[in-house]
Structure formats: C-alpha cells, structure tokens
C-alpha cells in the first residue's frame, strides 16, 4: 500500500550541523532552553551558540542556570540579559549578578512556568492558576476569584528560538525523548518561532512507533545530530 507516497515523504524539517543551525539565532533573541538541572540540556547546541556566535543581550527561558551546563559559560560571558525560570538560588554567581543588576530575573512557580510554555505554543495567551495566589510571587499580578478561590492571571511564554534535546529524530523530524530527560523539551518545542533540536540519533522514517512519538514534526524546524559541529 501507498508505496509511491512512502518513497517520497519529505517534510520542511531541515537537518543541519550545529554551526549552521545556531547561526539562525538573531541578536537579542529570546531563547527557550530545555532541561532540568543537567538532565535533558541541549549541551551541544549551547556549545555551538557560545563558540560560533556573538549574539548578546539574550533572554533565556529555562528552569535554572546550572553550573555544570553550558548555560553557565553563557552567563559568565554576560550574554544573558534576562532569565525567566523557577530556581536560580543554587547558583550563587547568578544571585550575585542579580544583586548587582547585571541580570534581570523573572521567577515563576514551576507549574505556572511549564503551563505558560505549553499554552504559549498552543495559541493561548493567558490563563488563571491558583498557584502563588496570596504569595509574594503574585504581587502586581491580576487576580480573580473562580470557584471561591483566588487565582492569578499568568501570561503564556513564547520565544524566538527553542533549543531542545531529544533522544531520537526520524528523517521527518518526529521526536522521542529518553526517561526524565523529557522534562521541558516537548513543550518548549511547541513554543518558539524556530525550534532547533539536538538528538543522539537520526533514524529512518518508519522506525519510530507512531503511537509513541512525543513531538510530532509539526513542532520542529531544525534537527542537529549531536557531534556534528
């Protein structure tokens, strides 16, 4: 069945080297970076971003800035103007830089952060959540009562570029992840004008189980094979 079609499947997903891919990031871009701690971080793409580009004044949307990831040298080079995430206290230098006004930080509860990303990628610009109502993180935010309970209006997040890490891509651009390295990666894939994915392995079309594809290729623009600088 469908053999003629099957031979000719081609999507708009591009397969590039890290250097080629990363040069598409504009100056002053807002960039989502997947990963949680050191797990599921697109280390190779970040390395290319650091080594192969001079982009400055970046806004980074990522859970935290871990010392053992390539977000750290990017921070050390003062290329991050603003960070949006959930947990920056473990990196004392980030805390210090914030105190000295060298980096702007926007802190969100992790559930509000992750939903803001997913809904940003889903065309929903704002939502009400009970999380943080009545706390310091709701200061200056709109609130509203639903079902007798106070809720906070949160705005969704959308970026110029998402840099994510997946386990495998097929040649159409469909993605699967590995264990808890999934974390923010699938939702960040949805929430940017340009989604660049670093993968361990590129497989033939048909090798991924269609029931198990986590990120359909509709959300993917560029796939980079890890190691191909």
């Amino acid at each position: 069945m469908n053999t003629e079609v099957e031979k000719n499947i081609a999507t708009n997903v591009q397969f590039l080297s890290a250097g080629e891919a990363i040069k598409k990031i504009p100056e002053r871009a807002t960039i989502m970076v997947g990963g949680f701690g050191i797990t599921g971080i697109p280390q190779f793409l970040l390395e290319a971003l650091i080594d192969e580009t001079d982009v400055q004044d970046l806004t980074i949307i990522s859970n935290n800035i871990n010392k053992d990831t390539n977000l750290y040298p990017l921070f050390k080079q003062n290329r991050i103007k603003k960070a949006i995430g959930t947990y920056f206290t473990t990196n004392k230098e980030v805390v210090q830089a914030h105190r000295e006004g060298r980096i702007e930080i926007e802190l969100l509860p992790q559930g509000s952060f992750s939903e803001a990303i997913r809904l940003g990628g889903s065309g929903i610009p704002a939502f009400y959540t009970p999380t943080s109502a009545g706390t310091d993180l709701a200061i200056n935010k709109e609130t509203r009562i639903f079902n007798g309970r106070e809720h906070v209006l949160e705005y969704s997040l959308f970026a110029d570029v998402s840099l994510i890490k997946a386990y495998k891509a097929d040649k159409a651009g469909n993605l699967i992840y590995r264990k808890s390295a999934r974390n923010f990666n699938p939702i960040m894939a949805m929430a940017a004008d340009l989604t660049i994915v670093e993968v361990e392995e590129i497989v033939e079309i048909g090798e991924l189980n269609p029931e198990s594809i986590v990120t359909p290729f509709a959300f993917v623009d560029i796939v980079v094979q890890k190691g191909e600088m």
Partner: protein
Amino acid sequence: MTHSVKQYIAWRCAQELKSGIVNLGIGIPTLVADYLSRGSVTIHSENGILGVGPEPSPEEFDIDLVNAGKQPITVLPHTSYFDSSLSFAMMRGGHLDATVIGALQVSEKGDIASWAIPGKDILGVGGAMDLAIGAKRVIAAMTHLTPKGDPKILPQCTYPLTAKKRVDTIVTEHAVFKFYQEKLWLVELNDDVSFEKLKEMTPASYEIAKDLKRVQGRHTFIG
C-alpha cells in the same frame, strides 16, 4: 454543482500546496487530497493524526483509524497520533502551514462564514473556528455563487462568522483571489469568464493584480 466544478476547485487549491502541513476541511477540501503530492505535503486531521494516507481498501479498514470527517483512512510511515488537545494546540498555535476550508461567504476584509446559516439552529461548529484562527494560511474553497446564483464574495458576510480577517486565498471555479496589505486582489481569472462577468458575480471590492494570470479553466481540466 457538477462533479468537475468541485474537482477543479480542489485541484486548483492543491496547486497552492507544494510542501508543509495542511488540514483539509469537510466538503470540497476533502477532494484536495486527491491532487496533492502526499509525500511532500503532510495532511493533519484534527482528531489527532499527522500524516493521513489515502483511503483504505476494504481489507485495510480499521475502526480506530478515521479522519476528522469520520471517514476511514490509512496512515504513512511518518504518521503520529496524539490527543485532541495537542491536535488543536498544533492548529491554534500556528504550527500548520495551511488549511483549506469550505466557505459559505468571504468578505473583502478576509472574514469567513462557513459553519452556520441565519435562522437555522446553531448546533455544530467542530474544528472550523480553530482552523481558521490558527493555520498560517487559510484557503477558502468554494463555488463562486450559491446554487441560487447569489454571490459569496461580499463587502461583508451576512452569515454568522467563523473568524475575522483570516482568509489568505479564495479559490473558486472561475478565479483566485489573495489578500495582501489588507486588500483583496484578483490574481487569476479563468478564460471562461470576462472581467465584467466576474465583477457582476463578485460584489466585494477587489483590485486586479499586475501579474494577473488568465488561465484555461475547468473546461480543459480533466478531473
């Protein structure tokens, strides 16, 4: 409306789609699939499929495999399945390159009416509004006139709207219009109608594109 009118419109819509992801609505748009290069254009179905294949043979029929029109389908090697919320996230979030929707009316501002008729019960909308809102390009596929001979491309829609200012391209059996810089442009006219005749059938204000194409229309089309 003859079979070949529908098929000509579908074929002409398919000429707009050379690559990327497209969602095809019910009616004429369903026929577009027959004229697409289904390898380079991927079909999205809002019930949760990216990569719809051709109709199944009877022995391939699978009750768990239908498209948004609830018709049995097949899938392709790059197909994926997902739940309805992700499917509409894909649509509303701007991740589809185009949609072809059947339209009842399109206004000169790009408003589209496709789901309801005044005075009738408003009890069904499906995915039409999300498609019109979300797809990067909205191609309205319709006959130029109603069966009664009333025009459909109007200064403003008189039927309930599906979405405001979202149509990118109108394809009828006589002409192709595109929206550009908040104006409607005639970009293609079949040689079976004159400019005057078209004007008569098209109360909306439109400009004539400098590079307007006059083409042999459906009377030469082998559908």
